[in-house]
């Protein structure tokens, strides 16, 4: 029962898509499709290893009250491997959410993409720590990382720390982070067309989160999760407007 069992290794040429959801009831694997499956309870792994020409598409959804963290170390160990890790986090109340991503390009010709988007409300706090390391001989690496958060209340906090450590010279890498509020000009425009303020905010929130939902391959699952995220976003808006009084 050592650390080894928490590693999910994707063999040469295999590909896997997974959606993991954390909520008040804990963390669970909503879907896993493709040719490779983790041996352990899938939701437990905190490390992945990608062999030659393997592909992993991993989507995390964190709902309010989850009290969870997202931690992942990814080793791209075989040429031609491709990794996409994305996530939505919705935080409220006293939620504390650390997101720790450690993506290591150990060999040439791999690509990785990270996209994390979140809404923080109440007195919650989200901390994103994302690191990309490109080893000296990992030429032709493409590695991108983005983290964007919208703050919905005065007491919510966000920390974001993107890091790039690049030891190869022929690579394409970037990272970007933004923290902001919902745009009030957009809200006024929508309200002037008869869309109520709360509804306008929900539209803004869902359009902000949509790029992550697009990573969910299975259209039925995508619709189901979109509906759940929609409902959670509505709760966040409702609670935020109530706390103003």
């Amino acid at each position, binding site marked *: 029962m050592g650390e080894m069992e928490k590693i999910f290794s994707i063999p040469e040429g295999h590909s896997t898509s997974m959606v993991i959801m954390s909520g008040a009831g804990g963390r669970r694997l909503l879907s896993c499709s493709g040719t490779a499956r983790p041996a352990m309870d899938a939701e437990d792994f905190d490390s992945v290893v990608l062999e030659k020409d393997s592909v992993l598409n991993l989507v995390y959804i964190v709902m309010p009250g989850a009290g969870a963290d997202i931690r992942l170390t990814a080793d791209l160990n075989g040429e031609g491997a491709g990794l996409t890790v994305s996530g939505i986090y919705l935080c409220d109340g006293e939620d504390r959410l650390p997101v720790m991503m450690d993506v290591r390009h150990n060999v040439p010709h791999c690509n990785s993409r990270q996209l994390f988007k979140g809404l923080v409300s109440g007195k919650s706090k989200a901390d994103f720590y994302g690191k990309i390391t490109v080893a000296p001989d990992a030429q032709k690496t493409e590695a991108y990382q983005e983290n964007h958060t919208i703050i919905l209340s005065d007491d919510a906090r966000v920390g974001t720390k993107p890091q790039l450590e690049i030891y190869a010279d022929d690579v394409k890498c970037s990272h970007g982070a933004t923290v902001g509020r919902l745009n009030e000009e957009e809200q*006024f425009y929508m309200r*002037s067309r008869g*869309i109520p303020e709360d*509804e306008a905010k929900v539209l803004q929130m869902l359009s902000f989160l949509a790029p992550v939902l697009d990573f969910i391959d299975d259209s039925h699952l995508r619709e189901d999760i979109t509906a759940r995220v929609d409902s959670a976003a509505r709760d966040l808006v409702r609670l935020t407007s109530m706390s103003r009084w």
Partner: protein
Amino acid sequence: MSDILLEIKGLKAGIEGKEILKGIDLTIRKGEIHAIMGPNGAGKSTLSAVLAGRENYTVTGGSVTFLGQDLLKMSPEERSWAGVFLSFQYPVEIPGVSITNFMKTAVNARRKAKGQEELKAGEFLKLMKEKMAFVQMKPEFSKREVNVGFSGGEKKRNEIFQMAMLDPVLSILDETDSGLDVDALRIVAGGVSSLHTPEKAVIVITHYQRLLDYIVPDVVHVLKDGRIVKTAGRELVAQIEADGYDSIG
């Protein structure tokens, strides 16, 4: 029954402590088209912003009554439901929200506010198609994100499309001619004119004459330094064009 739609009395308003409107009186009746003209900085856009309910403007005096209701007490969405429409001088881009989703939400929110059932998907799409054709917007625009990457003319046509969809009683067109080439101007003005009925009214806010060649006003007001300094018939437009705003007031 009164034929007065909008009655503005002694309206004073400003932004960040600066008074811009210094006492506006204006009465608009059913069937009328009013032009409000004036030099830059006269307060034209402030007036439209206050009527639409933009929250960063402060009303410091006077009253605005729309169909017997106190307009100033209503939220922007309530004003829309009551039948007020503002065509924005600078339409706002809403990334990630398609025109279809935007309009469906708007149309159904209003129906809900009025105690009506939501439109069925088929009925809604039919209505969209009809109103888009009306301002010569291509059907593929329905999938585009609201105003994102639109040209000036496309943005203004999108405003008039929304006006056609929402079927307002009072339309306020804020500098709708800015950024339009002659063809787009004709489409936009033609759209506005054909939506006009004896039950409705239009306020055209503009710096220039050219839009008023197409949307012919019944009454023309000149706004200068926060006050209406002259009100006359459409002949005033030609006088302004010939002699400028300095000749008036």
